């Protein structure tokens, strides 16, 4: 794991293996998810991979009725919206991800602050975006 170069490409490979990985700055301890190869806080280039637990809380969300062509192909539309959210990870950083397991036709039922856990959506058909990071409510 530690041998993988820190890049979006490696991050996506980890997602494919159902691991949510970030990078931590050896100089100032700043934590980045998705990972950065260069620390934007202190400009150090010494960063190391760290694994995230994959839990967090919902910070913001939207239920999308009019999606891009790629989502329409997957069957999402006005009658079947999909949810995207911003998640505050337990470790601190924020990520954006798909939110599954919520009632997208009743957005009022989706609560900011609700606890979530990571889920990995694998799509065989599309090699370039093989795995989409998602989160789902913890019962």
């Amino acid at each position: 794991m530690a041998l993988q170069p820190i890049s979006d490409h490696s991050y996506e490979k980890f997602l494919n293996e159902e691991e949510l990985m970030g990078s931590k700055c050896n100089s100032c301890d700043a934590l980045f998810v998705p990972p950065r190869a260069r620390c934007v806080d202190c400009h150090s280039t010494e960063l190391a991979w760290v694994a995230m637990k994959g839990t967090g809380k919902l910070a913001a969300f939207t239920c999308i009725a009019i999606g891009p062509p790629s989502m329409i192909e997957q069957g999402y539309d006005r009658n079947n919206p999909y949810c995207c959210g911003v998640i505050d990870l337990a470790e601190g950083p924020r990520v954006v991800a798909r939110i599954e397991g919520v009632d997208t036709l009743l957005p009022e039922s989706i609560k900011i602050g609700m606890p979530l856990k990571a889920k990995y959506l694998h799509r065989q058909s599309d090699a370039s975006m093989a795995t989409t990071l998602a989160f789902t409510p913890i019962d």
Partner: protein
Amino acid sequence: MNRRSQGPYWYDHERKPDGKIVNKKRGLNRGVAMVGAGMSSFGMFSDRDSKDLLLEAFQEMLSSVDRGIDPNDMDALYLGNFTNDFFVNQSHWGAIVADALGLVPKPATRVEGACASSALAFREAVFAIAAGFYDVVLVGGFEDMSKKSTGEVAQGLALAASPYELAAGFTFPGVFGAIATAYFQRYGANREHLMNVTIKSHQNAALNPKAQFQSTIKDMMASKIKRAKAQAGPVPNWSDEKEFLSDPKANPVIAWPMHLFDCSPISDGAACILLVGEEIARSFTDDPLYVVGLGQASGRALHAAPELTSFEATRSAAQEAYAMSGLTPDDIQFAEVHDCFSIAEIMHIEDLGFFEPGEGYRAVADGLTKLDGPKPINTSGGLKCKGHPVGATGAAQLIEVWKQLRNQAGERQVPHSELRIGAAHNLGGTGGTCTFTILERR
């Protein structure tokens, strides 16, 4: 301290502990003035392309120069365009536009900064004049969006989002929808507060002959009721604008809580501005406007931004422009702000310092940002109603400031006896590029 009183040449160098010298302040080595402005109508035009719209804007700009301008006297062109490459499969628009306007062999430079493209073009032109390289420069902005399907346009606009947002499935309305939920949660606002922005935008646009939607929400309700009666269908009985905007048939969800009437439209349009060196401005007009504040900043994607309810790049750009001009938010008498979505207008009026964080939605509800309020915002109707041909928007916002400051805004003229300072805020992507430009009439 008012830095403008220090004369055109000033530097504020700072020596760092390691001995290096950096310029921490901002200023122009030569003043720059706006002496002409024109824009095309904004709308969806199946039979007109970018060149046609630019020709219209250019012609209106030429006639706006009080003492006239010979196009041959223009030194260069700076043109803002987001992505005609994608929208009409044609790149290299600098030279194409120079040729269309009859300005070959003048140098033409295309500038890209997503929806802030032409505000960046304006800055580049200001810098070229301030450096003393040119005296008379044309700034243009244009976008031709309506030739593609709605889905394709969404795809094109999404080119300006971050790759992480796209991977998650976010659209632009989706990003602003998520921001709205965070704002609601933090400050106790709700959808009704967003409706206040929409209602005001339509009221202003009804008075703007260039706007894409020249009607108030009440006008739209009346025409829908009339149509329903004519078709002998069920006649809606909305009691007021908010009931209309709450009706999912009239105002469907795009990306909850963003509904159709929270979103700026797909538009075609172009805008042109003429900038000259300050010392020659009065040979073109007795009433030039002076560029007194310039700010531009970059911001991070949604997940990396310090806050979900504020754009860091807007704050930085505003700080820079206020510092350069010596002005404060209270000095800005009216402003055009980048209301690509209703929630965005509320955030910007807070980020620009007009209202405290969390107070923007109350200010709109109290009518403070109306045309006759103490801080009129988006007198043009804003992006929501004037239209949002993305590459033209930044220049078009400055043209509204021009019209208001010169008392040429017609029915939507801000009713203030002495307008002197106006500003425009332009935003690209999901806050990745922001500008704030302050103009002064002397």
